[in-house]
């Protein structure tokens, strides 16, 4: 669960962070250069204003003999006699500043002016140093704000995502723990989000439909099995009536015997179908302390008698006294089916070992020298059953009982022994 949440969060955050980072990388130089350009432009304007002021106010009153003095007191606006024809030429130049004792960038404006009828070259300059310091600070501030913005968004997004997906995770958790036997309704919150409301609605509908199908199917099996009881009873009774006729001969008895076996098999099959359909019925949900050892001891004579026909030996190798909170009838059925199976599929002079451990029941038996196909093991009617063998429902019923109680069942083929172990949780 936690991994999935992070995955989702990371997925949504990664492109977002990547975009922010690229934007920062790209925006910083652009921002820097445009700011610089803007500043140069501003400086040029100042130089232009200086020039305009000079032409309009200073130039008309300036005499030739004042030029030397002017140049002395205005280091930034120098006038030199020149024949060159230069008009409004702006440029940047590194000039040594004796005050700061370093080379500094200056913005200069050269243009021709006419003073006292004489042609002069007007050179105005503006120091760019202060502007550069300002740049650095502006850029630093910009980067800091941007970084704060990203970090903030990261955490907000993380919190928001977690919060937003909460109902989704709730729903997921409930679906994961959904048990068709219990059929508890979906109890979820959509946080008022339309998509989740839709999801929950659809899932609830789907689960309900599944439960309906399941119930209908169960009911059908139950009804069908029930309806079969009476005709079966009639059939069985008629065969028994036939058996009593005075002049039956050997061939007729043989036929009657087979009819009788078939009717027995039918009624057993029917009873098992009913049982299979009813495992999760209310009537078996009553739980009490069930002692496995007591149940086995009550029936061990019966099992031994059944096994003796095949000269199969039954050994109780471990007899831990455990009590399970379960329905006694269900546990009886589970034991019966497993033990009768171990007898049925055993070989002459074979053996059966039953071990009751602290939290586990292990039944192993000799039998055919190849493992059973585990995938088909608990399926209904998965192996071909002859008339005198089981109903093909025994292990399917066992599996249902195990599932219903949240136990686990395992099959292993080890050293020629087929071993079923039921873990009680």
């Amino acid at each position, binding site marked *: 669960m936690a991994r999935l949440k992070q995955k989702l969060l990371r997925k949504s955050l990664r492109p977002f962070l990547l975009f922010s980072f690229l934007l920062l990388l790209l925006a910083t130089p652009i921002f820097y250069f445009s700011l610089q350009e803007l500043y140069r432009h501003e400086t040029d304007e100042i130089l232009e204003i200086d020039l305009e002021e000079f032409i309009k106010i200073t130039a008309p009153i300036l005499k030739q003999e004042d030029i030397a003095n002017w140049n002395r007191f205005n280091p930034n606006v120098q006038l030199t006699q020149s024949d060159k024809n230069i008009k409004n030429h702006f440029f940047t130049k590194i000039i040594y500043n004796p005050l700061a004792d370093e080379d500094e960038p200056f913005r200069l404006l050269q243009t021709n002016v006419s003073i006292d009828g004489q042609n002069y070259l007007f050179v105005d300059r503006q120091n760019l140093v202060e502007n550069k310091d300002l740049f650095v600070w502006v850029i630093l501030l910009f980067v800091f704000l941007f970084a704060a913005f990203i970090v903030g968004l990261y955490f907000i997004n993380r919190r928001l995502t977690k919060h937003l997906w909460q109902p989704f995770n709730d729903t997921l958790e409930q679906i994961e723990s959904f048990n068709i036997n219990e059929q508890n309704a979906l109890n979820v919150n959509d946080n008022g989000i339309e998509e989740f409301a839709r999801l929950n609605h659809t899932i609830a509908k789907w689960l309900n439909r599944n439960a309906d199908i399941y119930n209908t199917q169960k009911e059908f099996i139950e009804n069908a099995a029930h309806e079969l009881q*009476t005709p079966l009873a009639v059939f*069985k009774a008629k065969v028994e009536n036939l058996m009593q006729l005075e002049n039956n001969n050997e061939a007729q008895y043989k036929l009657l015997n087979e009819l009788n076996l078939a009717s027995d098999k039918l*009624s057993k099959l029917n009873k098992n179908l009913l049982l299979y359909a009813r495992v999760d019925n209310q009537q078996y949900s009553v739980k009490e302390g069930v002692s496995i050892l007591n149940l086995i001891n009550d029936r061990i004579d019966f099992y031994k008698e059944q096994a003796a026909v095949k000269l199969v030996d039954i050994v109780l190798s471990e007899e831990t006294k455990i009590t399970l909170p379960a329905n006694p009838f269900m546990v009886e059925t589970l034991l019966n089916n497993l033990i009768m199976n171990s007898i049925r599929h055993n070989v002459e002079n074979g053996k059966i070992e039953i071990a009751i451990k602290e939290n586990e029941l292990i039944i192993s038996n000799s039998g055919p020298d190849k493992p059973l196909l585990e995938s088909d093991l608990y399926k209904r009617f998965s192996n071909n059953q002859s008339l005198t063998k089981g109903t093909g429902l025994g292990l399917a019923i066992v599996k249902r009982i195990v599932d219903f109680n949240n136990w686990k069942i395992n099959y292993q083929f080890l050293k020629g022994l087929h071993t079923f172990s039921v873990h009680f949780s």
Partner: protein
Amino acid sequence: MKVLLIEDEKSLADSVINYLHTSEVQCEYAANKAEALDKIAVYEYDCILLDIMLPDGNGFEILQEIKRQNKQDGVILVSAKDGVETRIEGLNLGADDYLTKPFNLSELLARVQAVIRRNQFGGNNKLQFNEIEIDINAKSVTISKVATEVTRKEYELLLYLVANKNKVLSKSAIAEHLSGDMADSLDNFDFIYAHIKNLKKKLGTAGEYINTVYGMGYKWHD
């Protein structure tokens, strides 16, 4: 012995009547609740075979009526329902026994006889067949006044055979009878050979009453 059979399935009822009739049991028949209540009010029966599901009512209602009228008739419930609850409810209401459909007719006859014996003979309950005497309470057997040791299974087998005298009993019916609650788990009836053989031996000359019927089963012949 007079028995009332309350069963709506005519075909099944015919079979039961036919089987019981040849065992000297007089069997009357009611197809529904109304008929049944009429008969119960007027006649006394040794045993009533009562189907729980009837077209015009519930077998439990008839059972309650029998108890209300303080009738001493033995009651065996017969039902297609084999739920533990139904069984317990029936027995709590005062039924003497409970049988699930489909059943063996031989089993039904044995149960009818057991219920009647219990109801009528109480403390001194003995079953006599020629030289064989079976003491139901002591679960013991004497042959020509000589006590004969039999195992629990052999005793049950003997009682079952005698109850169904002159009837052909299938191996499966005998095996199911001897297995009681475990009958549904059976799929091999061969274990009864040993019991039959041992019982025959213990009965001595009386063992000759037991006849084999061509691979089908056994028959107690008088």
